[in-house]
């Protein structure tokens, strides 16, 4: 697996992998993550069937983006590459306390998030601008360190459907971590 990731990552760096990946059928998209892809957290609803995040485009607690809110679209329906994307943080404690599930109040006073949501994480590398998975990259916010927020954005032109599909393809890479 590791070598396969490396190949994909190298291809990605040369800018050749993207066209291939966007063009493939969505159903055949396989979850792939570059070695040492940055680690980040997002609070999402859990699918009780497999303990993985629920994908969707209507709520901020789903694996996906809400067009017009999380991303902007151009006249052709393509996602505008302007650093916007799916919101993530380097640690779950860095996420707004209004989204952190209430059960975690002993650790984060005032937490008001729904207990139906969980703190999911993926990746292992440092929270810096780097590829995340097929056609996705992490773009940390600008500003003085420590940066506590970033977006998982498409790394090159893509339609909304393609972007959502690639975000969805990372589903199996997420795991719950509330430690």
């Amino acid at each position, binding site marked *: 697996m590791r070598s396969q990731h490396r190949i994909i990552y190298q291809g990605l760096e040369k800018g050749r992998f993207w066209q291939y990946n966007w063009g493939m059928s969505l159903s055949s998209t396989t979850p792939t993550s570059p070695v040492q892809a940055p680690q980040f957290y997002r609070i999402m609803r859990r699918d009780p069937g497999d303990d993985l995040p629920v994908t969707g485009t209507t709520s901020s607690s789903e694996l996906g983006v809400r067009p017009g809110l999380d991303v902007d679209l151009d006249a052709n329906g393509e996602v505008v590459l302007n650093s916007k994307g799916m919101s993530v943080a380097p640690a779950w404690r860095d996420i707004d*306390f209004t989204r952190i599930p209430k059960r975690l109040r002993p650790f984060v*006073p005032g937490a008001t998030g729904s207990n139906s949501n969980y703190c999911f994480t993926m990746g292992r590398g440092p929270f810096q601008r780097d590829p995340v998975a097929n056609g996705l990259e992490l773009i940390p916010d600008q500003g003085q360190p420590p940066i506590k927020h970033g977006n998982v954005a498409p790394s090159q032109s893509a339609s909304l459907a393609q972007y959502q599909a690639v975000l969805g393809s990372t589903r199996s890479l997420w795991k719950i971590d509330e430690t």
Partner: protein
Amino acid sequence: MSNDRTFGSSSFRLVAMGLLALHKLIAEGKDDTPEADASRDSLEVPLRALNKSEKDRAQWLSEDLYSINQVALPGNLKLMTSEAQALLNASYEARQSADWDQALEYLRGCNEYVLPAQLSYLRGAIWCESRNYDIAEAFFQHASSCEQKNGMYRAMHVYSLEKFDPSAAAKVAREILSRSDTEPPVVVAQAANALIRGAKASLHNELDRVRRELIPILDRTLDRLDQDRKAESRGAAYAMAAGLLGFCYEYLGNEGSAVSSFSRGLLEKPNEAALLVARGILQYGSSPRAISDLVEAVQLGYPKALPYLFLAHYYLITNQFDNCRSMCERGLLLDGSNTTKSQLYEWLAIAQAELGFAGELVSASFDAAIRLDPGNDFARENLSLFQASLSKAHGPAHAEWQQKTEAAIKSFGLAERRYDLAA
């Protein structure tokens, strides 16, 4: 220290309002709904605009708001310890010095030792003093729902509600006043205040109807307080009821009854500066007691410019120019309308001229008067008189200054106070 009077930026206010709404949804079991999600989404941008201390304040506010949605279990209360008592005292002291974040933090340190109602009352008082009335209302409401017979808790609930939602407060006030003979007097007085303030936007006839309706209620409330020397918060209730009764009479043109009402309140609370000012204005020009009332109010630290205006005028027309200058200078440091301050500057200029101050200084005071109120014709005329006098050996003689009569100042003062009450 967080002793800024607004206790937070506009973004903090947005966050506070959002948190109140979100906690309401949580209390109703709707925290997993699209409505709650939308509420969280709406908080995202204002939360990012907060500085570190505001963010901490918002987060701890959210934690404290959980306490008002929990069922109070008296059995869970711990016996007060000296350490907890020390924290309670420290919270009170921090509140006195307007260090509200610290006051709230100390309270958290002893929250297991304080009754839930009392804890919410103390939190409400801190948020109320920091002028976050919507947050205060949430805590006061919890306190009064825990102890429904506690008049002070209920009075503070009505007070804070009136501050940010006058029409809702007027509705609550009407319910309270419908059973005014059985409600604690302090609650009745506060309800009457809320009703008057809630009706301020109404038509003149409607306002008069409210005042007529309140007169017998407030009269009976004062009678009840006369009969019950141990009534809860008796002093505050008495002063408020007597003051409101006086205002109702005054607005309806019955000055004699208004003065009697203010005097009735002052018999019980001789140091109530607001009552002294009310009676002083009403009797200005017709009773020497007006001056002693206004002097006393000023000595008690009345925080607005109006009594200084009356005293400045009195000293001006009695040729006590040093006293006049002092009243003008002190009044100009306090809250007051531009019209009030324009007159204070005008009389300051006259006093300065009479006391032989430099011509530039006198002219500057006249200019300030005209700048603040371009319609102040007396200031223009007196400036012209002064400028004409500069070519003479002496300034204008006392009688040459254009001066308002006591009756005119009284009319102005009553209008100013009414405007202030309605604001």
